[in-house]
């Protein structure tokens, strides 16, 4: 049975067809993408923590960037990975990309790393590398803690990682100065904290989709994470810090206006509800 047709203004406000809401949102997004009104971006404390953690890594140690994401969260995790890569290159830190799940993450991150490497004149195998997708979750981490070349085996291109110049002297987890977990999946951080950060005191930083980020604030408070990027907002802040405004800055600009629309719609709906209740038309929203 279909809902009764709205007869009063307050009813109409409360029963705006969802297609109109979608169209309004799409309109705001297209408008701001094509004719942006720029808003300032100020790096937050968790974002500054990520940058400071990268900068603090000793020169003889590697940074691991775990790219546990795929196309479904690429809008947030892609710019996060890119900004972290820029932070590594700008601070002259050597890094490796790897992931435990899903496998597309290493390919998408490799494209971003190659693009940035061209800009900084960095060389694969010397300044950065890709350890590839490694299946086995906790088992991979426990094996890495003891012997990295054995646990990783071959890199993304099928070459034994032990033969890469940047792997000289890299034996176990003590050679790692920081792990940046860029992920759209829960449980990855818990694995790294439980098996690597806790037992071996290897510093960790996280970059999460905005949906999952609230879970990880306690990890910041307990210093288990040195910093955190929260969704596209965190990516935009780090892009601003490394002076490479890119997709995330554009996203956050549009995002702010989309939020204004959503807040206006929520207020409108509630006003309609209050008017209806004031006229004694029941309490149905």
């Amino acid at each position, binding site marked *: 049975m279909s809902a009764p047709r709205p007869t009063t203004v307050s009813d109409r406000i409360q029963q705006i067809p969802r297609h109109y809401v979608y169209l309004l949102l799409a309109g705001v997004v297209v408008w701001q993408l094509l004719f942006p009104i720029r808003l300032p971006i100020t790096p937050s404390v968790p974002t500054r923590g990520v940058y400071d953690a990268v900068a603090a890594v000793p020169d003889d140690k590697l940074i691991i960037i775990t790219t546990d994401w795929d196309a479904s969260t690429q809008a947030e995790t892609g710019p996060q990975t890119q900004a972290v890569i820029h932070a590594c290159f700008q601070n002259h830190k050597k890094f490796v990309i790897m992931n435990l799940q899903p496998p597309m993450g290493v390919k998408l991150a490799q494209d971003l790393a190659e693009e940035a490497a061209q800009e900084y004149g960095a060389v694969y195998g010397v300044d950065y590398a890709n350890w590839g997708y490694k299946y086995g979750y*906790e088992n991979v981490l426990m094996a890495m803690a003891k012997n990295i070349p054995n646990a990783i085996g071959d890199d993304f291109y099928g070459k034994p990682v032990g033969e890469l110049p940047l792997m000289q002297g890299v034996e176990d987890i003590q050679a790692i100065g920081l792990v940046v977990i860029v992920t759209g999946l829960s449980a990855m951080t818990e694995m790294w904290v439980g098996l690597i950060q806790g037992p071996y005191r290897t510093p960790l930083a996280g970059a999460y989709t905005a*949906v999952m980020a609230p879970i990880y604030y306690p990890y910041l408070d307990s210093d288990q994470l040195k910093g955190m990027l929260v969704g596209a907002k965190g990516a935009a802040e780090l892009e601003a810090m490394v002076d490479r405004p890119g997709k995330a800055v*554009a996203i956050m600009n549009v995002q702010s206006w*989309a939020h204004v629309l959503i807040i206006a719609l929520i207020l409108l709906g509630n006003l309609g509800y209050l008017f209806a209740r004031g006229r004694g038309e029941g309490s149905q929203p």
Partner: protein
Amino acid sequence: MNPDLYILWAAAIATLGVYTILYRENPISRLFEHIFVGLSAGYLIVATWTLNLEGKWWNPMIHDKKWYWIFAPIVGSLFYFIYSRRLGWLARLIMGLFFGTAAGTFFRQFFPIYSPQIYACFKPLDYQAGMGIQGVIFDLLLHNWIFVIILLTVMSYFFFSIPHEGRFGRNLGRSAMLGRWFLMIAFGAMFGNTVMARISLFIGRMQFLLKDWLGSLIPWFATRGL
């Protein structure tokens, strides 16, 4: 035609196809949804072989004469005995092994994950404790006081063993009510983050459609500040 252009058009058509769901459930969005799931599964199989099994299992077994690796798939295939009524106990062997390993690993992770967070809950609330931090004494103390009040009131909300009657019980009830409000505020903030994440994904797709796809047809779109 440039192969990249085929990929661009395929991605644009797939994006628009999936977004037809916004109008209503339809076969086009279903088709592209299934293609996406199929591609992901296919990629997973290929990547598992090329980036893991080939280098770590197949090559050592075939080229390095490590013949004992042949037992790995035999042991792994024990899972499939779940379908046999007579030999189902073989599947339980391998499942038991996996459950045991998972439990052991979880126990190993538990304390490193949670004990620092429990320890971090004990925050200094006196003026002296804030003296060591330059210039943020008030902020730190305020932050710590807010944290501890929220922690205690929320914990009291989950304390069900004492009825909210009598002097102590009524005060516990007030604390629980305050804790409930704090929980609602926290859930609201989390939901706000969820909205932000969903809109980010939508904007990401619109960036692709406008800058990459339409930009390849009409250069003006590619020049906009996307």
